[in-house]
C-alpha cells in the first residue's frame, strides 16, 4: 500500500507542498533573515546583525502596546471563558427558547472584525457622549471598548464548545452526585467543571491567541487613536512597516518578537492544560 501510493507523490502532495513552501515557509525564513537586515524592499537587504532588536526595546510605543496587548489578552481570556461557561450552563437546561438564544449568542461570530469595529464605534461613542468622552479620549476607553467588542463576538463561539463539553458528560455521573446529596453548586464544582476541562483548554487556547493577534477590530474601532495609545501589537507592527519609511527592519524584528510571544504562550498553555487533563482522568 505504502509504496504504490508513494509513486503518486507529484499528484497528491507536490502542488500543496510547493504552494505551502512559497507562500508560508519562504516568507517565514525570509522574515527571520530580514529582521537582522536594513532594507526598504526585500531585494536590497543589507545584513546589520542584532542592530534592529535593541531599537525596538527603546521604542516607548512598542513597549506600551506590548503590555497593552498582554493585559488585554488576560482580561478577555478570563471574561470570555467565565461568561461563556455560565451561558452554556444555562442553555443546556430545559429551556423553551434554548435554540433561539444559542443562535443569538453565536451570530456575532460570523461578522468580520472590520464590520464589528464600526458597529461598536457607533454604539460606544454614543454612550460615551453622555459623559462627554469618546472612544479616543484616552487609551483606556479604547481598551475597554475592545474588551466589550471581543466578548460580544466570542462568547457565542466558546459557548458552543462548552455546550458540547457539558452534553458529553455522562448522565449517570451527575445523577449519582445528586443521589449522594451534592448541591447544585457542588455538582458544578466537582462534576461539571472537571469534566469540561478539555473544552476549557480549547477555549483558553483560542481566546489567548485571538486576543494576542487582534488586528481588524483594533483598526476599525480606534485605529490606535489617541496618538497610538490604543494600538495593539499587530497594529503596531503594521504601522511600523507601512507608516514609517526606513523602519522596515525594526518592524520585522518586532514581528519576530511577536511571533515568539504568541508561540511561547501557546506552548506554555498547551503544557499546563495537558498536565491538568491527565489529573482529571486519574
Amino acid at each position, binding site marked *: *500500500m*505504502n509504496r*504504490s501510493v508513494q509513486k*503518486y*507523490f507529484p*499528484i*497528491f*502532495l507536490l*502542488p*500543496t507542498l510547493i*504552494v*505551502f513552501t*512559497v*507562500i*508560508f*515557509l519562504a*516568507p*517565514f525564513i525570509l*522574515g527571520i533573515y*530580514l529582521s537582522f537586515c536594513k532594507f526598504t524592499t*526585500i531585494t536590497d537587504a543589507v545584513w546589520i546583525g542584532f542592530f534592529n532588536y535593541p531599537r525596538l526595546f527603546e521604542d516607548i510605543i512598542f513597549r506600551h502596546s506590548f503590555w497593552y496587548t498582554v493585559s488585554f489578552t488576560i482580561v478577555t481570556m478570563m471574561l470570555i471563558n467565565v461568561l461563556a461557561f455560565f451561558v452554556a450552563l444555562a442553555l443546556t*437546561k*430545559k*429551556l423553551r*427558547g434554548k435554540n*433561539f*438564544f444559542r443562535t*443569538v449568542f*453565536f*451570530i456575532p461570530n*460570523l461578522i*468580520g472584525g*472590520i464590520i464589528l469595529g*464600526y*458597529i461598536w464605534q*457607533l*454604539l460606544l*461613542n*454614543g454612550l460615551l457622549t453622555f459623559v462627554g468622552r469618546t472612544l479616543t479620549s484616552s487609551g483606556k476607553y479604547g481598551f475597554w471598548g475592545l474588551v466589550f467588542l471581543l466578548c*460580544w463576538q466570542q462568547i457565542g463561539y466558546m459557548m*458552543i*464548545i462548552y455546550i458540547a463539553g457539558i452534553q458529553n458528560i455522562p448522565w449517570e455521573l451527575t445523577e449519582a452526585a445528586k443521589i449522594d446529596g451534592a448541591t447544585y453548586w457542588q455538582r458544578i464544582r466537582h462534576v461539571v467543571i472537571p469534566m469540561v476541562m478539555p473544552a476549557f483548554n*480549547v477555549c483558553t*487556547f483560542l481566546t489567548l491567541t485571538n486576543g*494576542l*493577534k487582534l*488586528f481588524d477590530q483594533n*483598526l*476599525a474601532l480606534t*485605529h490606535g*487613536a489617541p496618538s497610538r495609545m490604543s494600538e495593539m501589537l*499587530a497594529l503596531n*507592527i*503594521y504601522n511600523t512597516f507601512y507608516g514609517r519609511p526606513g523602519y522596515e527592519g525594526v518592524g520585522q524584528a518586532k*514581528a*519576530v518578537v*511577536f*511571533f515568539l510571544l*504568541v508561540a511561547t504562550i501557546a*506552548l506554555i498553555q498547551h503544557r499546563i492544560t495537558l498536565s491538568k487533563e491527565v489529573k482529571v482522568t486519574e
Partner: protein
Amino acid sequence: MNNEKKKNNRYSFFLNLLFFIISIGYLYPVILILLNSFKKKAYISKSPFSIPFSEMFFGINNYINGVEKTGFFQALGWSFFITIASVIVIVFCCSMAAWYIIRVKNLGTKIFYVLCLFSMIVPFQMVMYPLSKLSNILRLNSPLGIVIVYLGFGSGVTIFMFIGLLKSIPLEIEEAAMIDGCSPLQIFFRIVLPMMKPMYITVSILQAMWIWNDYLLPYLILDLKKYKTIPVAIQYLRGGYGSIDMGAMMGVLVLAIIPIVIFYILCQKYIIEGVISGAVKG
C-alpha cells in the same frame, strides 16, 4: 412533588424571560446600526439612540450613497468569488495531501506534518511583509492569484484537520480495493472522497468564515484599484484623516451583515458542527 414542579416551572419561566431580555440586549448593536441606516448623516453621531422620525428620516439614501462610494456590489462579487474558489482549492488539495501523509509514512511526510502544525501558531504579521513583496514579484495580485495565497496559508490548519478526521476511516476497505487492482487515484476518488463528505462540509465552512471576513491579506495583496473585498471596501470609507461618512457607513454595514445572516440560516447545523469538531481537533 407537585409543589416542586410548580417551582421548577416558575424558575424556568424567569430564566426564559431573563435570557429573552439578554438576547434583545445582545442584538441591540445590530438593531442600532439598522435604525441609524435610515437617518440623515448629521443625526447619526449627534443622536444615535433616537428613532429615525420625520426630519431625521433619510429613506434609503444612505444605502445608495454607501453602495456608490464603496462599489459594494462589485466587492460582494469578488468576496464571493475569492471565498468560493479558495475554499474549493484548499479543500481539494489539502484532503489529497492529508491522505497521502497518513498513508505514506516516511521522514518527508512527517516533517511536512510538523511544519503544518507549526504554521498554525505563526501570526500573520510575522510573514506579512516578505509575503506581500513576494506575491507582488510573483504577480499574485489578482483574485485568482490570491486563491493560491490562501491555499498556502490555509493548508497548515486544513491538512491538520483532515488528518484528524481521516484517522477514523478504516484502512481495510482501501486495502481490499488495492488487492482488487484499484490505483491510488481510484481509491482516493471512488472510496475515500465519498466517505469524507461530511468532513468536507465541516472544513469548508470553517475556511469560508475565515476567508470571507479576512481583511489584511486581500488589502495587502490585491490590486486595490481593480479588486476589493467587502471588508476592504468598508475600511475604504474611512477617509485620509480618519473622517468617516457615517451615513454611507451605516448603509454598507447593514448590507454586509445580510449575506452573513442568510449564510447562517442556511447552514446553521453545519456551522455549529464545524465549530465543535474544529475545536476538538484544535
